[in-house]
């Protein structure tokens, strides 16, 4: 039963998200709006129901698997990828590393006054 309730809640939120996205023709996907709908719901309810927690944690544990079917889709673009292979490799790696380094440093700086207690808690 808890799994059933959890799945119903998640899908209902997604449906509401899709309706809002389509209705207001927003460029944001339905599930992202659904996430905000569920967050507001949890804030109003005051706690996470067991079924919702069980289903959510199960799905998030296998989040990586869920990307596989879309990823296999690169096989339909081999030609374009081959023609621009080095451009793609260098752009992807360099821009990702620079973005990570600068974002992490920026957030640490913006958040400096709160850092000590986080670091203490975050130590493994």
């Amino acid at each position, binding site marked *: 039963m808890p799994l059933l309730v959890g*799945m119903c809640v998640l899908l209902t939120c*997604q449906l509401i*998200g899709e309706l809002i996205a389509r209705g207001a023709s927003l*460029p*944001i996907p339905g*599930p*992202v709006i*659904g*996430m*905000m709908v*569920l*967050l507001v719901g*949890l*804030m109003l309810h005051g706690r*996470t129901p067991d079924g919702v*927690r069980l*289903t*959510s*944690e199960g*799905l*998030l*544990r296998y*989040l*990586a*698997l*869920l*990307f*596989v*079917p*879309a*990823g*296999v*889709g*690169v096989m*339909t*673009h081999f030609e*374009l990828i081959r023609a*621009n292979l080095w*451009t793609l490799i*260098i*752009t*992807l*790696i*360099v821009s*990702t*590393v620079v*973005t*990570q*380094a600068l*974002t*992490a*440093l*920026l*957030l*640490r700086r*913006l*958040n400096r006054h*709160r850092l000590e207690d*986080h670091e203490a808690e*975050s130590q493994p």
Partner: protein
Amino acid sequence: MTLHAFDQLWVYLSGAPLLYLLVTLLAFWLATVLNKRFGGTPFLHPVLVAIVLIICFLLITHTTYATYFDGAQFIHFLLGPATVALAVPLYDHLARVRSMLIPLGLACVGGIIISAFMTLGLATAMGAPHQLLVTLAPKSVTSPIAMGIADQLGGIPSLAAGLVLITGAIGAATGPVVFRLLKIRDHTVQGFTMGLSAHGFGTAHCFSSISALAGAFAGLAMGLTGLLTAILLPLLVKLFGL
């Protein structure tokens, strides 16, 4: 079994969703086992290994992506509810998110601008065609949003989804190294950076290898980056004169 009987069995199986659903799960399982065997190295990320295995299988059996997706769509569908489910870890850490709201918002806008500038700048300098540039631009955003943005800018949505995944795998691999070099130990900063630069991949990596706190912030960053990129990127692309 005679060759003819095997042929018939293959014709039946390859038409049914069951086979490709199972192939996807088996490939991911095998990839996870391989990854563990090699000490969890990010270069053999289970998702990338699984994708390579499946593409090899499809090429050998002369199966089209459309046929494969008929079966695999049942797994793909779960991305929707899983995205909604990110609200749960976010709610668990709501107090901490609230107390950091302004730094998080500023870091998010900063990260998006840095990412777009680096990506468009590098790819332009290396002579990428226009269609590829606008497909690359939303690469650090979660795939459903990236596909929408690429489409809107005149790129190729399905290629955008693939580039998003490769970016995610690269980000999951480079993130821990970057954090070690810059001595960034705060799990909230690590999680937020992973979610911003490597969307769901980074988020999945945070849940499995850092902590639930990092995962919650990665999920928040992924959602926020997706929202803000959908608004900011068309403007940034125009700024680049594309």
